[in-house]
């Protein structure tokens, strides 16, 4: 039996087809399958493949059946060899023909080799030896291992992760915290249950044992501190914004309570300024907030001072106004960012009368006390180590109450004292003393003694004559207040209890430069005007006087009620405004609008006395300290101010 192949296979191997030799080709194909490797040589086929159209015609004749006779016929096959087709010719590089250039070299090498071979036969250098290695018997050995556990882990390579790994590869890993966290995972579950049972209804602790280090850590304290400020700040946001003259957030905030019925301004309308312009609302004080806490409730406020560098820090001295026995008093440093709790609380043994912050070392607070001691506190330190120096061991200390302390820049004369700032204190023993901070405390030097003029007429005593009597106080008069000239720090003013105001100089310790006197009432407070350098204000028992530097009688006198004027302050923002505490009310005077009556009068709450007063630079607020331990912040509203830089006074003589 023959196999039938389709002609498409045949066309690959055969070329031309002739119709009569169809059968012969068929058997040729049969032999082709058996001896396929010789097929390319045995077939007398030229290589050119036939045109496909010819093949298609031949395909039609396939339909004949193959008969036995056809198969028995003898077919003649002629096989001839084709010409040698040279497909590839690579000439040998080793076997070189005689004609080549370097044939001579190769011949030489060949000769050398032949000689070597000859010599090899009897030569000792060349020995033939055979070697045999033993092949060890193979042995089968079985081993078993634990299953290799595989785990898939995925990671996102974030920028910060790469950064962290890069920088941490130099540092050794901190293993302590790891131990803590591991152990806390184990034990916290046990303590959870105990915590639930033992906890109170309002708060309980979970995993206490291992977490106390966390709570005591520095960064936690800092976070708490910031958080407290933020929580309180949210409550006080509208008030603080009004203080700082910023727009106030509306909605979801505490609304402002307006105490004064005259005031028409509301917090939300800060931006709408037409209200202030159209309505002729009278000047008034608007209550903003009060600094108070339980620690200071009920204490008397004796003195307040702003920090010279950080405008948010206020130092307040609390003490009970009891002249018979000096009870210990408190000094608190408040920050505006937290009106609910002071940042620092210092305890003082004696009643504090005066405070002042230093301008050059802004954390140093000078404190003058009722028992005559002067102390310097460093407010950056915590409560117990804060007092860095005091004058209690100094020989020049005051034996009587220090009524005022001021820092003064000593740029001009006393450079040998060291440091650029010194303290001046005025005391009831009649001395004005300059102190400087030495290594072992304070060192003092008397600047001036306030000589009493009660026994003589109203003119300056001649220099050098000092009547010595047994009683110390009859020679010297009590100094009550002090103010240093704002621009020329060599000049200062002192007010005495006899009603005299002396203008003194740092360089002259024997004589006063000038004396001003109106009456015999003690001068409670003196202040230079921050805008005009030759104008100052003084207050005594019932009057406020405005003086000009070279005139020996006051230019203006202000009286409103017949009560004691406790203190006065110039406003640092407007040249014509000052405030005074007279009796039980706070009066704001505006010299531009009215010199006969105060512009704003604010009465203290019943049962509360007003004790202390401070203005702030940059904002229109006034701080009022009272005898209940509260410092209330008021905003001055609707004052028509701002004209002119200096107070121009006409001397009406």
């Amino acid at each position, binding site marked *: 039996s023959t196999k039938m192949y389709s002609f498409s296979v045949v066309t690959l191997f055969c070329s031309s087809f002739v119709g009569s030799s169809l059968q012969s080709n068929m058997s040729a194909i049969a032999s082709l399958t058996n001896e396929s490797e010789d097929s390319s040589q045995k077939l007398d086929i030229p290589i050119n493949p036939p045109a496909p159209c010819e093949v298609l015609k031949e395909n039609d004749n396939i339909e004949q059946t193959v008969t036995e006779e056809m198969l028995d016929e003898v077919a003649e096959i002629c096989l001839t060899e084709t010409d040698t087709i040279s497909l590839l010719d690579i000439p040998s590089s080793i076997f070189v023909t005689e004609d080549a250039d370097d044939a001579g070299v190769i011949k030489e090498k060949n000769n050398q080799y032949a000689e070597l071979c000859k010599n090899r036969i009897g030569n000792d250098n060349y020995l033939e030896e055979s070697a045999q290695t033993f092949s060890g018997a193979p042995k089968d050995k079985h081993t078993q291992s634990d299953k290799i556990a595989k785990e898939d882990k995925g990671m996102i390579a974030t*920028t910060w992760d790469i950064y962290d790994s890069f920088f941490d590869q130099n540092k050794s890993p901190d293993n302590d915290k790891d131990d803590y966290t591991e152990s806390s995972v184990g034990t916290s579950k046990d303590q959870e249950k105990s915590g639930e049972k033992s906890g109170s209804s309002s708060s309980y602790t979970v995993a206490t044992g291992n977490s106390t280090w966390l*709570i005591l850590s520095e960064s936690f304290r800092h976070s708490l501190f910031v958080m407290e400020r933020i929580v309180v700040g949210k409550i006080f946001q509208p008030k603080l914004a009004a203080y700082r003259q910023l727009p106030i957030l509306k909605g979801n905030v505490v609304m402002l309570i307006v105490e004064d019925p005259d005031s028409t301004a509301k917090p939300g309308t800060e931006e709408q300024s037409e209200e202030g312009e159209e309505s002729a609302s009278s000047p008034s004080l608007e209550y903003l907030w009060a600094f108070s806490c339980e620690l200071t409730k009920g204490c008397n406020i004796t003195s307040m001072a702003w920090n010279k560098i950080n405008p948010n820090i206020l130092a307040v001295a609390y003490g009970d106004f009891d002249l018979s026995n000096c009870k210990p008093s408190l000094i608190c440093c408040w920050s505006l960012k937290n009106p609910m709790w002071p940042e620092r609380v210092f305890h003082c043994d004696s009643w504090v009368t005066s405070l002042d912050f230093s301008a050059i070392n802004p954390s140093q607070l000078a404190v003058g006390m009722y028992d005559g001691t002067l102390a310097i506190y460093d407010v950056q330190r915590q409560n117990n180590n804060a007092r860095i120096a005091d004058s209690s061991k100094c020989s020049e200390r005051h034996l009587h109450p220090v009524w005022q302390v001021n820092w003064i820049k000593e740029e001009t004369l006393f450079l040998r004292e060291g440091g650029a700032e010194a303290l001046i204190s005025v005391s009831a023993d009649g001395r004005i003393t300059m102190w400087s901070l030495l290594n072992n405390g304070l060192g003092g030097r008397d600047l001036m003694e306030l000589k009493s003029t009660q026994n003589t007429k109203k003119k300056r005593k001649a220099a050098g004559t000092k009547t010595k009597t047994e009683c110390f106080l009859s020679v010297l008069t009590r100094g009550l207040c002090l103010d240093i000239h704002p621009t020329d720090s060599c000049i200062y003013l002192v007010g005495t209890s006899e009603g005299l105001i002396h203008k003194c100089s740092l360089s002259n310790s024997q004589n006063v430069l000038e004396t001003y006197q109106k009456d015999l009432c003690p001068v409670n407070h003196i202040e230079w005007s921050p805008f005009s350098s030759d104008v100052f204000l003084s207050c005594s028992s019932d009057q406020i006087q405005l003086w000009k530097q070279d005139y020996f009688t006051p230019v203006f006198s202000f009286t409103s009620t017949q009560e004691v004027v406790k203190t006065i302050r110039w406003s640092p923002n407007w040249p014509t405004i000052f405030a005074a505490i007279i009796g039980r009310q706070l009066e704001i005077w505006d010299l531009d609008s009215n010199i006969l009556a105060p512009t704003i009068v604010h009465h203290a709450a019943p049962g509360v006395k007003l004790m202390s007063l401070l203005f702030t630079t940059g904002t229109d607020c006034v701080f009022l300290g009272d005898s209940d331990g509260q410092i209330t912040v008021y905003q001055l509203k609707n004052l028509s101010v701002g004209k002119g830089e200096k107070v121009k006074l006409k001397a009406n003589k």
Partner: protein
Amino acid sequence: MAEVEETLKRIQGQKGVQGIIIVNSEGIPIKTTLDYPSTVQYAGLIQQLVMMARSTVREIDPQNDLTFLRVRSKKNEIMIAPDKDYFLIVIQNPSD
């Protein structure tokens, strides 16, 4: 220690403060003033939020780090002070 307790008490006593939670670095609340289920819920959710926020901040600049996070919503405000060892969470309702 007493100072820290006092400060916590003061914060708790401020107007509108609904709760304070201190969570350690593993997400386990250490100290809380809310009930236990809420605490656990807050701790878990806020930890994820803080990680996302911190990742965002550091992705932009790896030398920067998250210091504080405030989430203000209609009903209250959640303030979070994160650190590598703990979170301090305070929930305050400002309109009370």
